[in-house]
């Protein structure tokens, strides 16, 4: 009977040790996919000033040359003004052209904000979208309950006071569906530019976003290639440093930039730090035991087993997002 040889689980087990080779491998495939397989002349990337889209720019510029990469800034009414500043610093650093396309008008046309705010007001009637801010969160005590997470809306009133209410199904779904107009409007604009220039759209989700379903189907999940789609977040940071992504972008806390109130990705979706999540996910995906992972991470095995169960659940329930339209039905 043969046994699978694998290294013991450790905190640096996913650390990339050969960054030049990794970058070369990604860039070579990018060039092949865009130029030969898809026969396009370059790339279009939505740039948010975050580390993921920045690393995608750095890799694509290395693969195709700066003159063949267009950065598109896609702000809307709820976007942080900081995003534009960071995106322009990035564009300057890597020498790419940029264009700004404000999608607020499109979103107003879709009644994105109105539909979202109507749902919020049904659970928090005193919410005034002109003055107050809102975000959707999962409270920590819910995460520990061993049930699938339920979401709460938190309204931050003008005077700084806050109110959080658990979202019933219809209101939760309406808020999410309305908010997803944002990513889908951005995708539409990116495809306008990619088709006008005969280029590919570069998708910027990382491995966790792809595998745990933290993206919008046909929104930020709508792209032709995803160069960091198989990289852990800590690996994305390694490549960011290696390729010279500006330090201010590397130091910036990743946010969802979806709702009016500031919100980290950890708070909105992942519920643990990237450093921890990378290691737990790797341990789960590669079949390490909860006991072995627990010993290295300094937590109880029961807690790791719960985290593994949550990963499995997320992977299953988000399969719909990763699956293209099913067309293998009856035909002759």
């Amino acid at each position, binding site marked *: 009977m043969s046994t699978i040889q694998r290294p013991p689980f450790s905190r640096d087990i996913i650390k990339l040790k050969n960054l030049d080779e990794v970058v070369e491998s990604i860039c070579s495939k990018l060039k092949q996919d865009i130029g030969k397989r898809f026969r396009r002349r370059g790339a279009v990337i939505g740039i948010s000033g975050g580390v993921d889209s920045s690393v995608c720019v750095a890799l694509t510029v290395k693969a195709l040359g700066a003159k063949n990469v267009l950065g598109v800034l896609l702000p809307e009414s709820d976007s942080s003004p900081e995003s534009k500043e960071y995106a322009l610093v990035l564009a300057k650093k890597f020498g790419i052209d940029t264009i700004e396309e404000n999608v607020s008008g499109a979103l107003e046309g879709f009644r994105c904000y109105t539909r979202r705010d109507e749902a919020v007001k049904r659970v928090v009637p005193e919410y005034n979208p002109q003055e107050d801010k809102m975000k959707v969160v999962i409270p920590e005590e819910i995460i520990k309950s*061993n049930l699938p997470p339920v979401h709460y809306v938190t309204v931050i009133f003008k005077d700084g006071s806050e109110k959080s209410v658990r979202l019933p199904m219809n209101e939760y779904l309406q808020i999410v569906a309305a908010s997803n107009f944002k990513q889908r409007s951005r995708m539409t604009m990116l495809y306008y530019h990619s088709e006008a220039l005969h280029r590919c759209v570069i998708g910027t989700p990382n491995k966790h976003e792809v595998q745990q379903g933290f993206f919008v189907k046909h929104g930020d999940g709508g792209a032709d290639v995803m160069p960091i789609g198989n990289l852990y977040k800590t690996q994305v940071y390694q490549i960011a440093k290696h390729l010279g992504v500006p330090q201010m972008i590397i130091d910036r806390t990743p946010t969802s930039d979806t709702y009016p109130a500031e919100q980290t990705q950890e708070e909105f979706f992942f519920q643990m730090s990237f450093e921890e999540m990378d290691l737990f996910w790797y341990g789960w995906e590669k079949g390490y035991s909860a006991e072995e992972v627990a010993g290295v991470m300094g937590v109880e095995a029961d807690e790791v087993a719960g985290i593994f169960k949550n990963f499995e659940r997320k992977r*299953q329930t988000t399969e719909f997002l990763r699956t293209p339209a099913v067309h293998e039905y009856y035909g002759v």
Partner: protein
Amino acid sequence: MKENIRNFIAETTFTEPEKISDEIMIFDEGIFDSMGLLGLINFLEEEFGVVTDDTELVEENFGNVQRIAAFVESKRVAVAG
């Protein structure tokens, strides 16, 4: 009551009711996900008049048909009392 709960789960998940035993763990087995939980909370309110508090959202109350029925019963007793 168990049959009502079982039928609700079966109808919303396109599953045969006989496959949903009293003891089967509906979330662990992938029958229900977070949307299923939200739908179940709505259902308990509409069908049985039971409002679920935040602190009651635990596996002990929602893990399977048996536990859900017991939870509804305990809430009704508490209200009646």
